[in-house]
């Protein structure tokens, strides 16, 4: 063992053990304090917009009556499930929940922002999340560190819990998982390399074709069941993509995702497949997201379809399970 100048090694071992024990205690304390934080979503919100970047960029909450956009880029379906669970526990009673469900949403593609997501959502998830991740997905060191930290109470990353605590207790502080509507400006359509890159990222894993994630499918079911139990109308929305992007999606993904989403009809969930809705090139930000111009038109249409539009904008409302 490494020698010491003055203090014998056994004292160092005791000091390190005390440090770890103390770390466990303060981690538990700050975790509990952070879990007491009440989300800042008004309980009067009728519609909650959840999901990944498609919700963040495409769903303007002002198109609905009393809607809140809580989308977060890179938010997979399991995070949306835990987010909704938390909001319901905090007293939120929405009439409907709208979640973006694109063709790559259920894929097992490697997401390199996983560590960031684990950091944002670790206060919401439970042991089941880690068990499913370990069972069905690749073991990521940040997931393992969070599991050790949260489930076993090992004092890894206790500093982040302290940082989260101070951020939430600050007047302007909001939880890392809250999200917001952030429309994109401009257009990147026309760059062929970006199309190829995004298709490769969404539908292959390290260059090999991939399939649907079992963990995400199970959470999609859990989410639909949760909404049914609480009497919430669930809308799964496959948002518009550029025709060139659509052509590049493997047929197996289209079939499997449509089947998985449509089968949730057993829980009274609706699946709106708007992926092939016609939009001009200028209305796309990139190949799978609309820009601010496109999102304005899309949000109005989606609000009409889901029946939650602003009172002044009542029009034809269509509520078929699949519109395509």
């Amino acid at each position, binding site marked *: 063992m490494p*020698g010491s100048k003055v*203090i014998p090694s056994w004292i160092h071992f005791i000091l*390190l053990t005390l*440090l770890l024990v103390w770390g466990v205690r303060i981690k538990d304390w700050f975790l509990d304090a952070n879990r007491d934080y009440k989300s800042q979503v008004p309980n009067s919100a009728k519609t909650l917009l959840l999901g990944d970047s498609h919700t963040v960029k495409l769903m303007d909450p002002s198109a609905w009556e009393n809607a809140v956009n809580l989308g977060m880029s890179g938010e997979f379906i399991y995070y949306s499930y835990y987010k909704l669970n938390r909001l319901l526990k905090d007293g939120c009673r929405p009439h409907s929940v709208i979640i973006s469900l694109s063709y790559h949403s259920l894929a097992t593609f490697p997401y390199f922002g996983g560590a960031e997501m684990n950091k944002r959502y670790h206060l919401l998830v439970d042991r089941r999340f880690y068990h499913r991740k370990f069972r069905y997905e690749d073991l990521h060191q940040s997931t393992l560190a969070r599991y050790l930290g949260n489930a076993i109470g090992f004092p890894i990353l206790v*500093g982040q819990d*302290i*940082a989260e605590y101070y951020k939430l207790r600050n007047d302007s502080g909001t939880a890392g998982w809250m999200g917001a509507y952030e429309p994109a400006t401009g257009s990147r359509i026309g760059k062929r390399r970006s199309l190829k890159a995004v298709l490769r990222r969404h539908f292959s894993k390290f260059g090999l074709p991939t399939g649907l994630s079992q963990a995400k499918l199970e959470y999609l079911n859990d989410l639909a069941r949760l909404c049914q139990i609480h009497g919430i109308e669930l809308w799964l929305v496959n948002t518009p993509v550029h025709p060139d992007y659509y052509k590049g999606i493997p047929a197996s993904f289209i079939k499997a995702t449509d089947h998985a989403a449509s089968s949730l009809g057993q829980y009274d969930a609706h699946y709106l497949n708007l992926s092939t809705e016609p939009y001009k090139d200028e209305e796309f930000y990139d190949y799978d997201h609309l820009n601010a111009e496109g999102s304005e038109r899309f949000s109005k249409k989606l609000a009409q379809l889901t029946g939650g539009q602003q009172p002044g904008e009542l029009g034809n409302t269509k509520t078929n399970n699949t519109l395509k």
Partner: protein
Amino acid sequence: MIRICEGLFLKVVLADWLAYLIKPLWESPSAYGLQMRVLALFGYSLRIYFDFAGYSSIAIGASLLFGLKVSENFNSPYLSANITDFWKRWHISLSEWIRDYLFFPLSQGQSRRFWLQWMVPVLAMLICGLWHGAAWNFALWGLWHGVGIAVYQMLQRWRKQRKLVTPGQVHWLRNLMGMTITFSFVTLGWLAFHLDGLELALQLLSPLTLLYIPAMALILILLLGGFRRISDFALSSRWRAIYALTLSLMFYCGMETGFIYARF
């Protein structure tokens, strides 16, 4: 690996936590009292040191992994007894370059000309400031240090002429006073380095600041000096690395601040 662990601790624990804690103070200094504004200033002073020293330590450690020995870049600069001493301990690689390629060539034959004695350090430090970026705030920061060095050197010459400088060890109280003045001076200089420094500087305009700044500098010098002594006396470098790694894993702040000096 030992240097990398130490650098990680300085960066992801000390520097990032300080950045996190002082952020609201720098964003709206008027919302806080004078003591808190002084804390914000010293917090930034320490943050920039821990950030850069951590960065340098990681670089030295990483170089050693490839068999390259890189010279030290810091030597407890905030424990310097005067501003010249500070520049021998802070960003050593840059200050040595400035000394060898700017200061010494410009100083040739300057002893007889009074104005040159003033101008050389000011000009050298102005260039040092502009090395950080072509912006008025870096120029101002360089000027601040240049004027500081020039004043100190003039004072030393005057003391030598009057035979006030006695050879041998300096009394500890004088040393401590020198450290306090130097740390306060350097810390005030960071106001020009930070983009929001002007706002904080205006908020610090109070007679009480003259009391709070040296008091805070003295407290921090005692803490830093005490910590250095204990660490040098009681811990071997390996145990230091074990503690640094354990604390980094536990108290990693998770703030994406980047390295301040990576920009330069």
